[in-house]
Every structure is written in structure tokens, then in C-alpha cells.
């Protein structure tokens, strides 16, 4: 799919893949995220990579490559794509973000590629529908297992803003890079994509990890409970579900990197 300019490219890619899109006319940014934490179909079949690699190479920007959980049918293709991207982006891709234990081992043994533990590793419950569950201090269980987060080649972790106050005391002395997603918190995802079935015939709808027309670049759903106005709205974007969680404090340690997900900007663009 072609986009008229880089701004649109980043908007669309950010929506799908978590690219760190910040308008460089207004704000500074240090790196761009490509790939996807959530969708193997997007990771393998998106055609945006050459443009982003070129853009970053010319501006001396580094790239974080997010790798989703691949279902069995797409695992081999996913690995091949990963290898192609690492090779094509060897001057700019300086870390690979993995989201499951299989890919953690694969990338760790792949070569000299620094690895980040992605957001899907940190599976503590979060729920924008329960104000009491958001308006609190919450930690991340996996951070209490230093042997896991300090594995060889693991250089960082990627967290979600699952509560108003994030307890990072367990990694007070952690030397890796702590990245925090925002302003949306990931809450759920599935291998079956609702949007990816929009243009399928009735008897082929809602099958796991089949191809699509990237309908996710054209549709967002917002869900709300009118009887509970204090609850945060849930937003279905691509395969994943998020809730808005912009203001987060941390205790015990600050974060090293803020990863911005421009869902608001993307939604505005869809509205025209």
C-alpha cells in the first residue's frame, strides 16, 4: 500500500506496529519502532519497511524491530522476514523486541542481536473497565525474577501503563533499558482478527491468522459502557484492545524510554 508522504506512512505504521511516530516538526524523537507486537500477518506482509529503513538511515535514527508471536503456520515465514529485516537494517536496527519464549531463544541464538523482552511477556492483569484496578499502584510480576530479565543478550524490557502508579522497585538497580508504552495500555489481543474478516466471504470469516487486506489501517472501534461513565473506553485497533492511560508515575526507578503510540492521531485521520 502506498502513502503520499512520510507523515501518513508513520501514522499508518504506528497504528499497526507501534512505530514511535512523533511529528519531528514539533518534538524530538530518538528512534522508531517497526514491526508489530501483535500481528504476524502485518509483520510479514507489510511493505513499509524499505521506506522506514531509508528514512532512518538518512537521519541517523535507530530502529527497534518488534516481533509478534507467530502462529505455527506463519512461524517459518516470520523467521525468514526477521532475517531479511535484520540484514537490510543492519546499520539502523539495533535491537529486536521479542514477545514469546520461543522467539526469545531463536533471536538470542541468531547472532549478535540485542534482545528486548516485549510487552506480551509482562502479563499482569490490567483492565480499564475497573477504575479501582487502574487507580492504584501495580507492579510487574516478571520483574521479580532477575534471572529471567537479565538473560544474556537481553538489554531491555518493554512495559505497559497498566495502573496510575507503576512499582518498579524490583528493578531499582536494573541496568537495561526500561521502555514504557503510552498513552495507551494494551489489554488484549487474539490471533483471530475481526477487521481482517471484513472483506471475506461469510464462510471464511474469523479464522486464525489468515491473510487480510490490512483493513486495520482503515477501521478503529471504540467501546464504552454508558452506565459506567468512570470506566475507560476500550479501543480495538488491529487485533489488539487498548485503554487510554496517559498519566503514569513510577516508583523505585524511572523509565528510560517513552514509546508513543499515535492512536489519537490515527483516529483523527480516519475521521478526516
Amino acid at each position: 500500500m502506498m502513502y503520499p508522504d512520510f507523515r501518513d506512512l508513520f501514522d499508518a505504521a504506528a497504528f499497526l506496529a507501534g512505530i514511535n511516530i512523533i511529528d519531528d516538526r514539533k518534538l524530538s524523537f530518538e528512534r522508531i519502532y517497526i514491526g508489530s507486537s501483535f500481528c504476524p500477518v502485518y509483520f510479514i506482509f507489510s511493505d513499509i519497511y524499505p521506506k522506514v529503513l531509508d528514512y532512518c538511515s538518512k537521519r541517523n535514527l535507530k530502529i527497534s524491530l518488534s516481533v509478534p508471536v507467530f502462529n505455527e503456520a506463519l512461524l517459518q515465514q516470520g523467521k525468514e522476514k526477521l532475517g531479511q529485516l535484520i540484514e537490510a537494517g543492519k546499520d539502523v536496527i539495533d535491537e529486536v523486541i521479542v514477545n514469546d519464549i520461543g522467539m526469545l531463544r531463536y533471536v538470542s541464538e541468531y547472532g549478535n542481536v540485542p534482545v528486548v523482552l516485549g510487552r506480551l511477556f509482562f502479563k499482569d492483569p490490567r483492565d480499564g473497565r475497573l477504575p479501582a484496578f487502574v487507580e492504584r499502584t501495580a507492579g510487574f510480576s516478571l520483574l521479580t525474577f532477575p534471572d529471567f530479565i537479565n538473560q544474556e543478550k537481553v538489554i531491555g524490557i518493554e512495559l505497559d501503563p497498566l495502573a496510575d502508579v507503576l512499582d518498579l522497585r524490583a528493578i531499582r538497580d536494573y541496568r537495561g533499558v526500561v521502555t514504557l508504552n503510552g498513552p495507551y495500555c494494551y489489554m488484549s489481543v487474539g490471533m483471530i482478527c475481526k477487521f481482517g474478516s471484513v472483506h471475506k466471504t461469510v464462510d471464511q470469516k474469523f479464522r486464525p491468522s489468515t491473510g487480510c487486506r490490512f483493513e486495520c489501517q482503515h477501521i478503529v472501534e471504540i467501546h464504552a459502557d454508558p452506565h459506567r461513565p468512570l470506566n475507560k473506553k476500550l479501543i480495538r485497533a488491529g487485533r489488539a484492545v487498548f485503554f487510554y492511560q496517559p498519566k503514569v508515575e513510577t516508583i523505585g526507578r524511572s523509565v528510560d524510554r517513552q514509546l508513543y503510540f499515535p492512536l489519537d492521531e490515527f483516529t483523527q485521520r480516519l475521521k478526516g
Partner: protein
Amino acid sequence: MKTMNILVPLNDRSCVSEFSNAGADEFYIGFYDENWSRRFGEFADINRMSGFGKLANKYALSELKNIVSDVKNRGKKLYITLNANAYSRDALTYMEETYYPVFKSMNIDGLIVSDTVSASLAVKYGIPVTVSTMGGAYNRDVVKEYISIGAKRIIFPRDLSLTEIGSIMRTCPEVEYEVFHMRNGCVLSDSHCLGMHRPECGATCGYLRYKDEQVITDLHSFADDHDIELNDYLYNMLFHNEACAMCAVYRFAQLGISSLKIVGRADDTEGIIRDISLTAENIRIAYESQSEDEYLRNMRFHDNVPQKCRLAFSCYYPEVRF
């Protein structure tokens, strides 16, 4: 030939007999622990259904011993669920001190766990490990990791195709495999759906179906509007409201699946008994059939082929017929 077992939820000791007589071979059960809740907070789950309190986990761990005996005396298997999304080190230490020795003493057939740390701990205590669907065994590489820890059984995610299941099983034949078979479906990923399952909010997937929805799109042709609206209607109203894999039983048998899981720890007993009986009958038909076509012709449906079967949006594996 080793036949497939039927695994069912057990939330009432009195059901052991009824479920066994209907054809159940294996049981899974969770438990509550008020000390756990006091120590780790009301939102800290012991298993995936802890949010529903005693409705889904009726017994304390100390009460399970007699239930295990009931099950074992009938020659059946019993699995205990310890499959919350995540456990901290403190929680795991508590579990190791409080639960694992009890599990060991009860000689259970498996502990259903959700992560590598819990699995390693179970192995340490000599307790057979079943990897929950919460463990996200989506591909052979993930399965190999669990096997390397010592897992004995893998529960496949609900959102894998039969082709994918077969591929993983051929690559990693050294463990048993279990599939979801009947009752409550899930349109998201068990292993990566981190919303709460609690009475005050329900599951995330249910909320997405039934609460007010605003669709924002830049697709505005009539054809696109139609496609989006129809897709939305089918997804919200029909897709996996209940889920079923009955048409796939023949292929399960061919693949060598060990166990078919009927879920519903908080469901009505009569409904579960009907599902057990129907599944047992169809397993028999599958093993007697010479081909999948023969099975599909002869298999029995719920209540003379209800609408959910004809529409096929309740199928875990629609590829069997479409």
C-alpha cells in the same frame, strides 16, 4: 489404539459420579484460598477463574484431597489449575510453601500452569506439568521450550487451525496434547488477554460484543459499509458465543490428540452431562469410521442440528466443513 479422553470441569464433588457415568475420563478443578487473597489482594488470581470467587472455585485446597480420592477411586485422572496470568516471586514462594507439597501428596495427574517458572517449580516437586492455554503454545518453538522444562501435556490455544495443530504435534511428538472442545468460547487469545474475568465486568470479549460501539473508518463506499456492518453483526452476535469442535473429532483421533476439554466451571451440571455424553458418543463413532466423510455423516449433533451448527460461527475448526 489409545483413545481420546474427555476432560471436564469439576466444581461440585457430587458430580464426580454423574460425569464419570456420562463418559468423563479426566477432571480439572481449581481452589480458593482466603489467605492468598488477604496477602496478595482481591485482584490477585490463583487461577484464571479466581475472579468469580467460589462460583468457579468452590473448594479450599484442603478440601480437594477427598475429591482427588473420589476421582482416583474411579480410575479417572485429576488436574489442578494454577494458571493465572502471572505470579510474582512472593506469590510463587507462597505457592511453593503452601500448595506444592499438598499437590505432591495428593498424587494428582497434572498441574495446569501458565508460565515457565510455575512449570519449573512443579517439575522440581515431581508433579506432572500441563501447560495451560494461558501458556500461549502457538508454535513449535514455544512448545519445545515447555518440553525442555519438563512439560508432559500441552493445551493448544483455541485460535490455532487443525493444520497448525498437526504440524506442532508432528514436530514435538513426545508430549500429550489437549484441545478445547465445547462450551464457552473466547474470541481473543487466552494467553494474551489480560483483562479481568470478574462478575462486575465480565470477560473482555463479552464486553466488546455487547457495549456501545463506535466504528471509525475512512471506508465509506456502500459496499464497504455493508461489509463492515455485516462483519460486525456476525462477530458480535454469533461468533463463538458458544464454541464447539465436535465436527473435528475424527481429525483429533487421527492426529493423536489425548484429551478433549469441555469447559464451564461455573456452568450448569445438566448441560455439561449432555455435552459429555454427546462427545463420548462421537468419539466412538469417530473410531468406528473409516473416513472423515463417514464420521461427518454419522456423527451426532446437539438437539437435531441447532442453528449454531448450521451457521457454523460456533466452530473452533470450521475448516472441517468449509
